[in-house]
């Protein structure tokens, strides 16, 4: 399972989300009463003929303000400007950029923003210091809809992100991208050709390379080697020459072949096809086939990529230096895969066996016996999220209204259950790994129905649960609206949860103390769309939907808030 695509604060929650984004009414009615689902065994307790839906990842994306160290940047496509808001004084300056600036990213911790001007097919690099901003323009590929900025701020990649934005190039290719070199005074851009449909861009820890996950595989951009337009070959996830090693010896690795959710296993025909990774219809030619790779991650050192193949038990490890693939076969469908923050291991979830595998990287792909397993008999778990410190993880399912999560002690302790009051939709960890925030799914029906009992009303409500991982204390917080973007401040003391329901006129933010679990409700004047932290001024900004532009700054220590409406008017204050 990949990382959640919530809009997160700087140093944000590490969140994994398993829900499919469905709204009220799309979930099965949860089992009621204590212990509901306790007797499940790979889906037992339900009609075995009714397949569970897959554990699906929820992706969200907003054209939202982005924060630098002190300033917040908001693109205004209508006016071809970027508003730069000083979080300390709330002074606003508008900076002219290109035509229709739409997609904007900041360099973490620095007052530098990169904005894609979709109307002029270029990018503007906005640098702010002492209240003044300078703009540098760089050409980009036509139709770019996403920009990823390296943590060190020296490079960025602009590409067409069809998955998140639904964008398609006006004409041309899905396989172009621009590498932006952002070193001040030496800015330039280079256009490259990569694999089909870039899905995600990650960067090596040392900032020397970017890894572009595409449908074809992973394209590795080593910046020092990018000097002119060129082709960046893929490292395919479907190399027919790859070895596949079973995790279980043949005598012990047999199961029914299909889990209660109907997931195919490596033993069926489709798995065989993927495992062979060749197209049998071709005449002796060695042809790479399409595989449905999911949860593709790259280790922080840029050495390995790892992915699971949807509907199979296959885990594929790509050696990004040697461009070779080794596969492990878990014997039953892997429903989620999460790479540890340091990249030394991954957790793979076998929902059909209620098992979580710990897969050391790369050793397990040489010696499958190094894979260790945690069996959770009776539990339905299909997703897993690893805490930022890599010492704990939460296993859970988003495919069924199970009202608990399993806390895994990755240092060797026994797993333990955390009982919840509602079904799970997503899980997030605070950056200090002390707290988890569980976003809940909502059952169909009116939560205010007086005929419904308390349990039913809770199930029908939106809400989230805060979990103290050390004590497993859990606190449910119901909300008047579906949870929007959420995030946590860099020091991990507070989380902010945005709530929006335009029909019910709900526009709020919750300021959640991650120490006491107390919640302060902040009323907002207009629907919130984004949240972010400005570390230098210890403020959180909440971007809101307003025709003139509105942003509220909250002192995260005190909860005091200040708002600015009308970026253009504010930028025209003259002294």
């Amino acid at each position: 399972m990949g990382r959640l695509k919530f809009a997160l604060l700087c140093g944000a929650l590490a969140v994994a989300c398993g829900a499919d984004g469905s709204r009220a009414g799309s979930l099965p009615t949860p089992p009621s009463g204590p212990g509901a689902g306790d007797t499940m065994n790979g889906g037992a307790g339900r009609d075995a003929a009714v397949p569970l839906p897959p554990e699906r990842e929820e992706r969200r994306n907003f054209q939202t303000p982005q924060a630098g160290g002190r300033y917040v940047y908001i693109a205004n496509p209508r006016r071809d400007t970027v508003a730069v808001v000083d979080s300390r004084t709330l002074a606003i300056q508008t900076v002219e950029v290109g035509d229709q600036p739409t997609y904007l990213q900041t360099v973490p911790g620095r007052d530098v923003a990169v904005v894609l001007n979709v109307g002029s097919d270029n990018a503007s690099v906005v640098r702010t210091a002492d209240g003044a901003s300078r703009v540098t323009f760089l050409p980009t590929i036509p139709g770019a809809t996403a920009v990823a900025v390296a943590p060190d701020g020296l490079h960025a990649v602009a590409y067409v992100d069809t998955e998140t934005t639904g964008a398609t190039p006006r004409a041309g290719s899905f396989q172009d991208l621009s590498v932006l070199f952002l070193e001040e005074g030496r800015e330039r851009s280079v256009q490259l050709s990569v694999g089909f449909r870039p899905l995600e861009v990650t960067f090596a820890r040392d900032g020397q390379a970017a890894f572009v996950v595409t449908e074809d595989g992973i394209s590795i951009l080593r910046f020092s080697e990018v000097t002119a337009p060129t082709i960046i070959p893929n490292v395919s996830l479907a190399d027919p020459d790859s070895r596949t090693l079973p995790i279980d010896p043949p005598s012990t690795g047999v199961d029914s072949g299909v889990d209660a959710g109907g997931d195919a296993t490596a033993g069926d025909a489709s798995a065989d096809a993927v495992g062979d990774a060749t197209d049998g219809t071709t005449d002796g030619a060695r042809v790479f086939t399409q595989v449905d790779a999911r949860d593709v991650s790259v280790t922080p050192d840029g050495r390995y990529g790892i992915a699971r193949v949807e509907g199979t038990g296959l885990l594929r490890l790509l050696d990004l230096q040697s461009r070779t693939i080794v596969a492990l076969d878990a014997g039953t469908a892997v429903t989620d895969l999460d790479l540890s923050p340091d990249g030394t291991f991954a957790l793979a979830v076998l929902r059909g066996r209620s098992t979580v595998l710990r897969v050391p990287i790369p050793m397990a792909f040489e010696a499958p016996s190094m894979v260790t397993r945690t069996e959770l008999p009776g539990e339905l778990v299909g997703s897993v999220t690893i805490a930022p410190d890599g010492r704990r993880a939460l296993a859970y399912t988003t495919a069924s209204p199970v009202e608990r999560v399993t806390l895994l002690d990755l240092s060797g302790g026994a797993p333990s259950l955390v009982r919840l009051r509602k079904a799970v939709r997503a899980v997030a960890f605070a950056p200090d790994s002390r707290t988890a925030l569980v976003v809940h799914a909502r059952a169909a029906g009116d939560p205010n129905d007086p005929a419904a009992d308390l349990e039913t009303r809770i199930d029908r409500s939106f809400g989230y649960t805060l979990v103290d991982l050390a004590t497993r204390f859990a606190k449910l917080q119901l909300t008047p609206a579906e949870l929007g973007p959420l995030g946590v401040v860099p020091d991990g003391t507070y989380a902010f949860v945005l709530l929006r329901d335009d029909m019910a006129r709900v526009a709020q933010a919750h300021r959640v103390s991650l120490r006491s679990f107390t919640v302060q409700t902040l009323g907002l004047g207009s629907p919130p769309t984004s949240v972010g932290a400005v570390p230098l001024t210890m403020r959180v900004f909440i971007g809101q939907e307003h025709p003139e532009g509105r942003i509220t700054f909250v002192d995260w220590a005190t909860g005091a808030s200040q708002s600015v409406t009308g970026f253009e008017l504010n930028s025209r204050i003259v002294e």
Partner: protein
Amino acid sequence: MARKNILPWSMLALVGALAAGCPAREPELGEGLEFLSPVAVGNGLTWVERHRALAWRQDLSTPEGAVRRLRLGPDPVLSVARQGADETLVLSRGQRGAPGRAPSPGVLTALPSAASAPPRVYTLGSPFNGLAQTADGRYALAHFRPEATQGRLLFNPNEVALVDLSQAPGMSNPVLRTVRSFGGVPNRVVFSPAMAVNGRSRTLAVVLSDAYLTLLDMDQPSRAEITVRLTLPEDPRAIRPSQVLFDTNDATLYVRADASNDIYVLRLLPVTPEGPSANDFRPTVNQLAAGRQPTDMALVGAADNRRLLVVSPGSRDARVLDARSNTVTEVPLEAPAERLLLFEGAAPRDPRSAPRALLFATTLGTTAVSFVDLTDLEERRGRNVETIQLQRAVRGAVSLPERQAVLLEHPTDATGGRLSLLDLVRRTASPIIADTALEGATFDEDRQTLWVAPRGQSRVGFIELRNFHPGEVRLDGPVADVITLPGSPGAGPRVLALHPSAAGWVTLLDGRSPARETARSFRGFLLADLLEEP
């Protein structure tokens, strides 16, 4: 009724004849007397005559109402009492040069009431015709009002003069400035109360112009002005700021503007000045939706939870605006309201004294008013509103908060009395039969009595607010206006009825026991020594 005729009326004809027989007469002698409205200051009145640029100071503490004359700068156009001081401020535009007459600059003259104190003359330079002053009377700001012509070949309508009235005139007092313009001219100037911004108390002048406003730090007159636009350049709306409120605890200004459905919230945030002429604060603008056509607003709530109550007749509601959180709470009203009055008191079903508001309309013909309990208003919204029918439309209102009442004025064709007294606690209205409007009504100093002077009638009316007993006093001539004077030691407040007369005619009444028998009349005092140089 006692009379003090200082100069007989026949002298007027004599003055005219003498003037006509003199071939080299001064031009102003050929003009009639034109007085500005008299100003009540201290124990007397200050009269200003425009053409001769003279001021008469009438001391009503003396039995004869002694007068003394003072020379002013040419072309005085405005006289007002200085706040918090026994002084009259007279704004003179100066004069253009002419054969035999040297040009003279515009000046502001501060005339102390005490005969021993000399006038102070602040040279403004330009022919300003507008003046605003702070509530404590320390600062004044002279400006041009928007008029088509100022009687000069060239003038700069955005020039202003900042005067520190607590200091003597000098090279740096007043300070002349030209405020930045986006094509408009100042319509009005309002001053803030003393408010702490960036840790320092200061007074701000807010110059209101079409579609923008300008902030001036009166305590730092050499610092740059800050101009805040209320519309974008391409916005054709005639956004004219019309009401400004100040939250001194939060360094925040609330601006209501004609033709805007938003309230503009200007929060003054501390900044580090970038130079000696830069300010140490900077405003940020926040716009909050206030319904349709907001017409009045007031600050409510405790200092740490200040909010704005706005009435918007166009959307038939009141709204509570919280500028900190940007939240706006709509409070539906059964009767549209244009004005609001805040008061503290009990209610028919709530004996506790609590903050409340009276909402009413004065131009819509609405016959109902709304009482709004402000406690928990955001949560309770319409449940905190009680509407009562008056059966008559309201045209005006005078708040009597210390009496827990409001005096309402109704249209003349209303039956049951032109005035009524609205009891804010019982929420009942009692008619008061009146033959006058509230326009021009004035309280005496301690607000014991409300005085009215029906224009053209030889009577003044009053209502004793202690028991709402009405009364009237017949005088010897028609009354143009009524002015109240503070009480002198050993005596209560006094009331002056002004009669239309170029020679000066006033009747002095005892404010506590108004009666024709005890009234004193002074006539002709403006002609005393008219031909003598002061």
